[in-house]
């Protein structure tokens, strides 16, 4: 089995220290594209978690057999496999959501987070640990996306998960249409990255002064 402190390390790194979105600035395209409704974002997040976790596991299982020269081809193939499965399942069992997300589910294949984790982690680590790494990298990504989505849907449409919110749906609140449009995503994401990094810098300086 994997030592539990190593798992904990992997989890924390994936969620905060090396968070794919605000530390590595990966996966920005979809973070901008599907975050104007919270429900869509949740499904998108679930799709990414599913893909990073299982592709990490698979790539790691195959790692001893995969010839180095074609490892990236194999990684893309494995990633595409899981994404297509998810897309097909959505089409069959949740057609409305599949229509909402349109091409973005398929575009997860090109999401740099997944490829990045396969290359940087799953290639050189045991399967279970790679699964955990993928799972939490996906969750780290999904959390940031959800934060962006909550801000955008609330300010832009006055609702959360489609339900009108007090104050924000009343005439007192003039809906910020720009939050629903693409520029709103840039502003919100920038503010979130800024906040997260400020917190991190403060943490680091505290550590330094202590030692």
């Amino acid at each position, binding site marked *: 089995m994997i030592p539990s402190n190593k798992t904990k390390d992997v989890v924390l790194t994936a969620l905060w220290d090396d968070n794919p979105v605000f530390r590595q600035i990966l996966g920005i395209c979809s973070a901008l594209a599907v975050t104007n409704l919270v429900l869509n974002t949740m499904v998108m997040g679930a799709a990414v978690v599913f893909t990073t976790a299982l592709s990490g596991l698979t790539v790691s299982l195959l790692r001893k057999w995969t010839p180095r020269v*074609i490892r990236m081809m194999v990684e893309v193939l494995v990633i595409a496999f899981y994404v297509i499965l998810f897309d097909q399942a959505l*089409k069959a069992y949740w057609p409305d959501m599949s*229509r909402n997300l349109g091409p973005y589910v398929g575009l997860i294949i090109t999401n740099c987070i997944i490829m990045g984790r396969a290359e940087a982690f799953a290639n050189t680590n045991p399967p279970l640990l790679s699964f955990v790494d993928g799972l939490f990298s996906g969750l780290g990504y999904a959390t940031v996306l959800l934060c962006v989505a909550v801000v955008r849907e609330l300010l832009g449409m006055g609702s959360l998960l489609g339900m009108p919110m007090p104050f924000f749906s009343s005439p007192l609140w003039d809906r910020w249409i720009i939050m629903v449009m693409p520029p709103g995503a840039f502003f919100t994401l920038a503010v979130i990255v800024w906040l997260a990094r400020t917190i991190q810098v403060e943490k680091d300086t505290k550590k330094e002064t202590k030692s």
Partner: protein
Amino acid sequence: MALREKAWFPIFFMFVITLCLSAVIILFGSITRQRVKDNERIAYERAVLQALPIELPPRATPSQIHNVYITNIQEADASSAGALKYIKDDSLVAYALPLAGPGFWASIKGLIGIAADLRTVTGIAFYEQNETPGLGGEIVKTEFRTQFRGKKVAVKGVPLEILPATAELDENSVHAITGATQTSNRLGSFMNEQLAAWRKGMNNQP
């Protein structure tokens, strides 16, 4: 491992992996194919019913929708110039004219219901669109769609005008979606073109 050193091994490896993964996808695809087809069909039938003055229960199941559809709707023929027909007690109540055209991101497909007088709009509905969620995507929401109900086509100017949200409305105009000017304009242009063509076809009927 000696096998891994062979020059052909990468090709063989890739081939085997591709074979295994695609087999799973094809299998899963064939299991869900019928379901996906049914979903598309139901989305279409629901749109037809929503465009017509037919009350559907708020959470109608696919089989309920299908039953209402087959008992009330007749497919298009020459006498309806390409529109579906809503027949109730042997008399024609309304037509559902299919609409299709470019949206902002991808094509929009839907139907507009016109009563037997060829004038009164009974509703509009969409079954295929990929507009921005929260903006152009609002065309599928009831707030936008109910505006059309009861409007009179071609009282003046184009059959149905889509005006900015601040404009005053009359008998043949509705409000556009704020922030989705492109979607509204494109929908307006193909809707009017196809409505005008259909009315011409209907008026030329013997």
